[in-house]
Each structure stands twice: as structure tokens, then as C-alpha cells.
């Protein structure tokens, strides 16, 4: 191998870069690269704002485009840049942006994420603007609950995710059942009667994969166990156990659920309903158009989700738009509040099926005239709002869901899982 040998035939260069100099040069070079360069905070641009959201499927995007069109028509001097981020990665990107102080003007906010976003001091307090907003009276107090912390409001409701149940009309007729179940007892009974292995039919498409944690938490509350009271973990183990036992036995004992449940997420339960594998499905109004692609009006109907012994399992969550920067505040507010106006809210609903957040808009003929939406109107009335405590999202995803999955796969008994969930909740809140 070559070693550094001075070759007498060649003229040596005047300077010698030895190892020490090399390291010095590297250090200086590295320091130079690291100096904060031209990237300071940008001067506010008078007429341009950006908006981060996690609408990702085609119908949602069409809805957004329509609202954007209407907004730009009403405010021709404003330029809106929208940025869509996959829902799964939204918080990761959000966190990075906050850390680097490179945040958008406006952003979509879900109630579940409010706690975390607020804890990062990233949202602008909109209480004053909202109080002076002419549309405010159209929104009952519960609309604001999901976006308020300590009586300060951080966003404007844009639309609602309303929980409901789809069921196979034709299967019920075949089985001689009069109507969809209204209590969980009836629900279990109906599911058993609809299940027919010979025809490859299951009564219920349980979502125990990604996203299933919300249903499990709803179930706990429907059986009477609170979750968080005054900022402290307050799970009632015996009631929680009963809830978990009831729900898991649909899979483990009664076998009215397809065996793929532990990994089934939205896509799978939707496909199982659409291909005729399951007879009942719990989801929200936003998926109506998708179900209609495979099933006709004679085949399915919508209903309010059945109620538990001590409460409902119907969840109602509003989606909000909030502001993150104080620059361009007026324009940002114009965009954020635009979603509350009647015309965009109704058109958005017609395209996507997402329920309007405004009580007044909900009385519009286009809503009340749609037969499917009767269930939604009722669900809005009785629906339970989601939890907002800091760490709610993490607790659901990383503690509740795996614990429930372990009941299904036989690794835990319901009481063990309930204890695990309670312990995890205490840890997150500490």
C-alpha cells in the first residue's frame, strides 16, 4: 500500500496540511456551515396566508377546494396556500415546526389534539374575536367546549364528525328483526342472530386496529366508568372490566366479529361492510358516500349507535380551525371564520357528508330533508364530546388499544387490561 512518501522527482508544495491543521480546518468549516444564515422569521406578507390540514382523500379535498373557491371569491385580494399533511404524520410535522418556529398562519385542530397543541404554546387565543363574531349565537356552548381551555377559545368550529351506525336492512328483514338495536344488549343479540358462518356473514365489524381506541374508551364510559376527573385518573376498575368484558366477548365468546378484528382499521371495517361480510358497522357521517358506492338504499340504513347501561357510546367531535401566528391576523381570522358561514358549510356537507357545526345550518333543508341524516341529527343531540386532557391521544393509542388487543388475542383478561389502562392513565397524567 502507498504510504505518504515524498517523491524526489516532484516539487513539494509550500504548505503542509498535517493532521492538526486538517482538524482545525474542519472545525472552522463546520462552524461556518452551522451559523444561522439567511433564515430568520419572515416579514409578514400582507395578503398571503397558509393553512395546514389533514384532509387527504378525494372527497375531502373536493370539499376543501369548494370552500376555498368560495372564500377567494369573497376575498379576491387574499392568497391562500394550503398544505395537506397525512393525518398520521401531522403531529410529527407540527412538533418540528413549533420547535423551529416556522409555523403556518392557520391550522386544522381536532379536540383530541388541542391539549397537546396548547401545551406547546402554539395556538393563538381567539376569545375576543369569537365573542365579537356575528355568527357566534348560531353555535351552542358545547361546540366551544372542545376548543376551549380555561375559558379561552382557540379555534372556530368548521364541521362535525358525528358517530352513527350503518346496518344491513336486508339482513335484518331476512332474520325477521324489526329494526336496528337501540341498546347494547339488543345489539349483541342482533349481532348473534345475523352471524351465519355458512354464508360467511358476521354480525358486527369491530375496529380493534388503529383507531379502535376511541370506541373502547366510549365503551368504558357507557358502562359508567369515568376517565379523568379534575385532572386526575378516575377509572372505576369494576365498571371498566364489565365494559371490556362485554365488548371483547363479541369476539372471543360469541364470535360475531371477523377474526381479523385485532388488526382491522377504518379501511378493513369499511371493506367488510361493503363486501357483505358484516351486518353492522360503527363509523360517522363522513363515510356515507363510500358506503353508497357499494350498497343501495334497499340494502342499508343508518341509525344512532346503541346505548350502554349508563351512557351512550355515540361520540361527537368537532373539527376546528385555529390560528398560530399573530401576523396577518385579520386575514387569518377571515379564513378561519369563513367555515362557519352557511353557504360554505352546507356545500361542504353536501360534498363530504360531514355534518355542519352550526346549529342554524343544521336546520337547513338540505340537512333535514336527507333521510339518512335523521340519525345524525339525533346523534348530535346526545353525543359525547371527546377527551382533551394532555396525553389523551397518546394514552388511547399506546395504552388502551394494545391492552384491548391483548384481551382479544388471549394475553390478558378484561380485569388485567382495565388495570393496565388505569395505570397507564395515571402515568400520563403525572
Amino acid at each position, binding site marked *: 500500500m*502507498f504510504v505518504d512518501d515524498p517523491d524526489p522527482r516532484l516539487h513539494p508544495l509550500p504548505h503542509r496540511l498535517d*493532521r492538526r491543521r486538517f482538524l482545525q480546518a474542519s472545525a472552522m468549516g463546520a462552524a461556518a456551515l452551522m451559523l*444561522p444564515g*439567511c*433564515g430568520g422569521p419572515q416579514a409578514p406578507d400582507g395578503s398571503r396566508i397558509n393553512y395546514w390540514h389533514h384532509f*387527504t382523500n378525494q372527497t375531502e*379535498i373536493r370539499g376543501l377546494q369548494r370552500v376555498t373557491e368560495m372564500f377567494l371569491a369573497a376575498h379576491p385580494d387574499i392568497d391562500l396556500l394550503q398544505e395537506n399533511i397525512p393525518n398520521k404524520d401531522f403531529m410529527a410535522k407540527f412538533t418540528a415546526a413549533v420547535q423551529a418556529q416556522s409555523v403556518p398562519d392557520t391550522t386544522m385542530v381536532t379536540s383530541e389534539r388541542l391539549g397537546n397543541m396548547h401545551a406547546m404554546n402554539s395556538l393563538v387565543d381567539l376569545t375576543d374575536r369569537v365573542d365579537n363574531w356575528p355568527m357566534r349565537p348560531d353555535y351552542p356552548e358545547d361546540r366551544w367546549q372542545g376548543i376551549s381551555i380555561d375559558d379561552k377559545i382557540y379555534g372556530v368550529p368548521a364541521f362535525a364528525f358525528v358517530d352513527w351506525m350503518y346496518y344491513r336492512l336486508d339482513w335484518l328483514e331476512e332474520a325477521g328483526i324489526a329494526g336496528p338495536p337501540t341498546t347494547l344488549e339488543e345489539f349483541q343479540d342482533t349481532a348473534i342472530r345475523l352471524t351465519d358462518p355458512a354464508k360467511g356473514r358476521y354480525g358486527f365489524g369491530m375496529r380493534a386496529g388503529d383507531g379502535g381506541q376511541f370506541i373502547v374508551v366510549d365503551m368504558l364510559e357507557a358502562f359508567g366508568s369515568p376517565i379523568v376527573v379534575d385532572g386526575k385518573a378516575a377509572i372505576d376498575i369494576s365498571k371498566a372490566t364489565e365494559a371490556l368484558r362485554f365488548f371483547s366477548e363479541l369476539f372471543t365468546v360469541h364470535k360475531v366479529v371477523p377474526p381479523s378484528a385485532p388488526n382491522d382499521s377504518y379501511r378493513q371495517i369499511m371493506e367488510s361492510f*361493503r*363486501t357483505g361480510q358484516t351486518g353492522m358497522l360503527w363509523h360517522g357521517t363522513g363515510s356515507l358516500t363510500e358506503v353508497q358506492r357499494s350498497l343501495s338504499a334497499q340494502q342499508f340504513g343508518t341509525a344512532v349507535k346503541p346505548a350502554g347501561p349508563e351512557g351512550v357510546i355515540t361520540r361527537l367531535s368537532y373539527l376546528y380551525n385555529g390560528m398560530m401566528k399573530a401576523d396577518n391576523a385579520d386575514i387569518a381570522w377571515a379564513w378561519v371564520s369563513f367555515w362557519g358561514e352557511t353557504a360554505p358549510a352546507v356545500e361542504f356537507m353536501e360534498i363530504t357528508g360531514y355534518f355542519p357545526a352550526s346549529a342554524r345550518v343544521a336546520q337547513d333543508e338540505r340537512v333535514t330533508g336527507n333521510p339518512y341524516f335523521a340519525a345524525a341529527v339525533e346523534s348530535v343531540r346526545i353525543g359525547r364530546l371527546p377527551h382533551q386532557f394532555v396525553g389523551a391521544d397518546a394514552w388511547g393509542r399506546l395504552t388502551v388499544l394494545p391492552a384491548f388487543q391483548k384481551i382479544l388475542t388471549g394475553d390478558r383478561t378484561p380485569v388485567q387490561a382495565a388495570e393496565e389502562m388505569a395505570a397507564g392513565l395515571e402515568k400520563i397524567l403525572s
Partner: protein
Amino acid sequence: MPPSQRRLDRSLDLFTGLLVLAFVAFCLFPLGWTLLTSLKPEADIVTATLQYIPQHVTLENYVTLWQQSDFPTLVTNSVVVTSITGLICLTIGTLAAYSFSRYRFRGRGKLLIFYLVIRMFPVVLMIIPLFIMMRNLGLLDSRFGLALAYTTFLLPLCIWMLKGFFDAIPLELEEAARIDGCTRLGALVRVVLPLARSGLVTTAVFVAIVAWNEFLFAMMMTTSQGSRTWPVGLQLMVGEFQLPWGPLSAGGILSIIPIIIFFALVQQSLIRGLTAGAVKG
């Protein structure tokens, strides 16, 4: 050649052929299914009974993909980022790998290991500091910035790979060149590089593929109006409420095409580089 040798050769050929066929089938089967799925309308994908051969062939998935995901921009960005990454990696990497391969200097072993160790830290945690740094440099949401980010985690790999290829080239050739009066740089460029061509191309292909498919950094550091790349666009189609199998499959098929073209183009120089590789006499 004795007939028994020929028979042995023939049966080995058959075995080799079958083995290769098995691998090709294993590789192509999912791709074939993706292709078939991309040609079916959605109603034929989400059905109770499986359709093998599409009953209705349609190109609507490709059209949807083109329109909905802003395909041309995304792919252009990906191509640019991948090219820059490849260029930087290969030039800087070649220099460093050559140094490691040919010279014994103090700290050589440690530096080599250091380059590797630095790669062992999970990317997931580096993203935020890297994001902040890129922002300070004004390189956020720029194709060059992304290429730089890619280069840093691909560079150590490049160096290790290229060093391996350089190690395989005997020193005598460079020594001969030096005796003839060539400078060391000259020997590197005129003797070593041509011989290492297959290694260089291989490493280039590797860098291109990794940069092309990278998702995490691209998602964090780019925006849709700026330099968003293709994999991010694809992932966006996996909406929480809908998984459009048709367009996603179409996207998968389209992802492969530029790389196939690239590989087909360089395949020739791979072969040429190989025949020049043997040390004659």
C-alpha cells in the same frame, strides 16, 4: 470436454435457470398483482369474490393519479433531488473511499468506524435538530437542502461500499502508472476509476433508489408548493378515511418506471466495466 462434464454443466444450467426463474416469479408476483389492480375500476377491487383477470380494464386510476397528486411536479422534484444526491455522494464518496482504500494514516481505522457509527443513530430522532439546522441555513423546502440531508446519511454507506470495490483493484496498476510519470490524481482518474466502474455504477444505483424512495425527511422538510417529492405524494393518498387501491397501485407502478429506465441505461456500462476488470497477464 468430456461428456460427463457437459452433462454436469447442462444440469447445472437447468438448475440455475430454474432458480433464477423462481426468484423472478417471487419478485414479480406482487408487482403483477399491483399492475392488475391498477387497471381495475374500484368496484372490481372491493368485491366479495376476487377477480383475477380484470373484467373491465380501465386507465382511470392513472388519470386520477396524474390529476390529483400533481404527478409531474412531484416526479420532477424527485428526479432533481435524486440527481443532486447522487452527484454529491459519488464525487465526495469516491475521494474519501479512495483515501481509505489506499492510504494508511493515523486514525484511519477509527475514522472508518466513526463514519459507520454515526449512521447507527435512528433517523427518527435526528429529524427535528436537522430541521432546525436546515431552517437556519435557509435550506428548508429546497431540493438542494433535501439532497444535502440525504447525502449525509448516504455518504457513509457510499464510502464503505466504494472502499470495498477499490480494495479489489490491485495496486500494481497505479504503481505502473506512477512510474510512467502520472500524478496520484491522474492515477486515480485514469486507472482506478475506469476499473471500478461497475462498483461506481452499482453504488450510484443504490444511492438513486434510496434517495428516490425516501419518505420521512421529505415529508418533514418540504411543502406541496415547494419541493415535495413523489413518495410523500403517494403517502398522502393513503387518507385516513379512504384507501384508493386503484390510484395507489397506479402510483406504485409509476414509481418504478424512472428507476427501470435509469438502470437500463447504466446496465450497458455495468457490463463494459466488467470486461475491463480482469488483470491481464
